């Protein structure tokens, strides 16, 4: 088993006719993802890499009632509308790749989705992949070649690929890799993703790739201390050398209100018995030791 994405995943690409949408539709198809339809208002009737395009999600579902997942490549100004359209049409999982969505918009649609029972991943995230089964995102196909016991939760994109790559090289495949996104407001945070992995029997170990800012890693540590997350974890936190008060790329990576420093995160994690790697490669070492392999 995996989380979020599995062999039953049937994907709708919102914004499929844009350059990103189109390119990643191809990559997802190449990976083996079942991309069954795309939506771009006004472009219904076209095809993108053989995938039929519709004007609306409602029309899509009429033709493809098996669609259960949507990935959004719609530009920031229109992305919120695409999210509402997906949620209102009962799509169960919506992965938002789009970055630069206004935070007030995100705070509203994230709450709305929760209310309607839709799981949101992102915005501003690389998506989700369950190696060799299905990918709903922009993570590089070449990295995700091996299924296995490691569940990865990450706030970063490339750093995730980096660590995943090293893990795969060392023989540790992944159950599912979730890039939760770098924005301050995201639909599913590390804690919620960790709870999903906790219930997934196939996932034996967790890799948590955090960064400075916010309190997701601290809250994750609390759940471990409370015994609500019991699987062994190897963590890495980026931004040890980042100066406070400056944004480093991710809007989420800013330290404020005395929380979210590298030190507070490492302290919280270590006091919950979680080992924190000092370099990306050390993550592999920790997983090797934990697994006894």
């Amino acid at each position: 088993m995996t989380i979020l994405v599995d062999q039953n995943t049937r994907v709708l690409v919102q914004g499929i006719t844009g350059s990103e949408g189109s390119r990643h539709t191809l990559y997802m198809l190449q990976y083996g993802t079942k991309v069954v339809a795309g939506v771009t208002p006004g472009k219904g009737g076209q095809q993108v890499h053989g995938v039929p395009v519709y004007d609306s999600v409602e029309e899509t579902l009429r033709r493809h009632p098996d669609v259960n997942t949507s990935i959004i490549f719609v530009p920031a100004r229109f992305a919120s509308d695409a999210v509402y359209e997906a949620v209102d049409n009962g799509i169960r999982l919506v992965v938002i790749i789009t970055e630069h969505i206004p935070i007030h918009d995100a705070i509203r649609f994230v709450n709305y989705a929760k209310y309607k029972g839709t799981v949101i991943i992102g915005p501003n995230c690389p998506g989700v992949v369950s190696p060799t089964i299905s990918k709903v995102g922009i993570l590089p196909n070449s990295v995700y070649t091996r299924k296995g016991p490691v569940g990865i939760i990450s706030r970063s994109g490339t750093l995730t690929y980096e660590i995943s790559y090293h893990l795969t090289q060392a023989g540790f495949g992944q159950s599912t890799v979730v890039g939760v996104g770098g924005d301050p407001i995201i639909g599913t945070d590390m804690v919620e993703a960790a709870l999903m992995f906790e219930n997934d029997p196939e996932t034996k170990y967790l890799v948590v790739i955090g960064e400075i800012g916010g309190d997701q890693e601290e809250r994750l540590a609390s759940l471990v201390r409370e015994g609500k997350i019991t699987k062994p974890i190897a963590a890495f936190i980026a931004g040890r050398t980042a100066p406070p008060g400056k944004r480093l790329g991710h809007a989420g990576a800013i330290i404020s209100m005395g929380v979210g420093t590298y030190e507070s995160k490492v302290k919280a994690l270590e006091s919950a018995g979680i080992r924190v790697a000092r370099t990306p490669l050390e993550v592999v070492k920790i997983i090797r030791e934990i697994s006894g392999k």
Partner: protein
Amino acid sequence: MRLLEYKGKEILAKYGVKVPRGVVIGKPDDVDKASLNYPVFVKAQVPFAGRAKMGLVKRAGSKDEAKRIASEYLGRVIQDFEVKKVLLEEGVDVVKEYYVSVTIDRSSRTFILLASPEGGVDIEEIARTSPEKIFRGRIHPFEGLRDYTINAVNKFMGFTGDLAYKFASLLRVMYNVFEAYDTELVEINPLALTRGGDFVALDVKIMVDDNALYRHSDISVEEEGDLTREEIEARKYGFHYVELPGYVGVIGNGAGLTMATMDLVREFSGEPADFLDVGGGASRDVVKAALTLLLKDERIRGIVLNIFGGITRGDEVAYGVVDAFKEVGAAKPLAIRLKGTNEEEGRRILAPLGVKIYETAEEAIGELMRNLQGGGR
């Protein structure tokens, strides 16, 4: 984006919040035109905290003194920011100072109202030393600021009768501005209670979400921006750059990987000179501009370029490096780590340059640091 104080006050005042009587000027001579009662406070308009300690707020007893201070401030570059505006404000008869703000609570994904009877000091300091002195009231976006929350904060602050009524009005305005301007923060600190029984916003900090600026034509990025000149340059090319105090140049793709690269530099006893994230799918031009910026930076003694290609393609990155070298020459040691999409093509393109390509960031940075340290620091 952090609005300058005067702009934040302008917005709040428009909705009825009382601010000190004042005038914003762009030239020292504008002081003559302002009819103010002296003494006044002369406040350099800069988008960062700690102004008072930096001598950027001074009291002027006369027009001449105000003009002297204003000319001292205007045109000055502080933390890479050029002062273009100065605010002159009359004093306020303060009985007590408070703290109040509306901001975003990430973990609960709601808005939050913060208030404290301890005004004028850093709220993070209060949060650390006496968290019980901060009122925290969640505001769900689906319900807005409710009266029951206003009642609770009034009780916490000890406001009753007329004061409670005035504070309630102030909070409603702050929340409306918070929503209307897509802000991440609307903060009044200190909020003064005057002898006349009014609340007056002595200093105002409003952070507007950069991603929502397109909806707010009354806010000008150029005028209000808190970016340094390099950062503005970087933005033009579409990469993200932050200057840091060290001597090792860092370029990565993706914020997390770039931060991790900075961290590795420190791990190998170096000091990163910057955070430079070329982003996802960077083109040849972006890589060229980024590398050129660092090659020209005199503080920088060596550079690590750490790319894990996903959307980003190794060949584009390699061509960008070639272009930068053509323009400014291989002036400094460069350690390149290139993995992922089109890695082999990238290696082929880079081969003629004689630059070594590493398998891992650890190797690249390790060897770079050995070179730099071997060469004496």
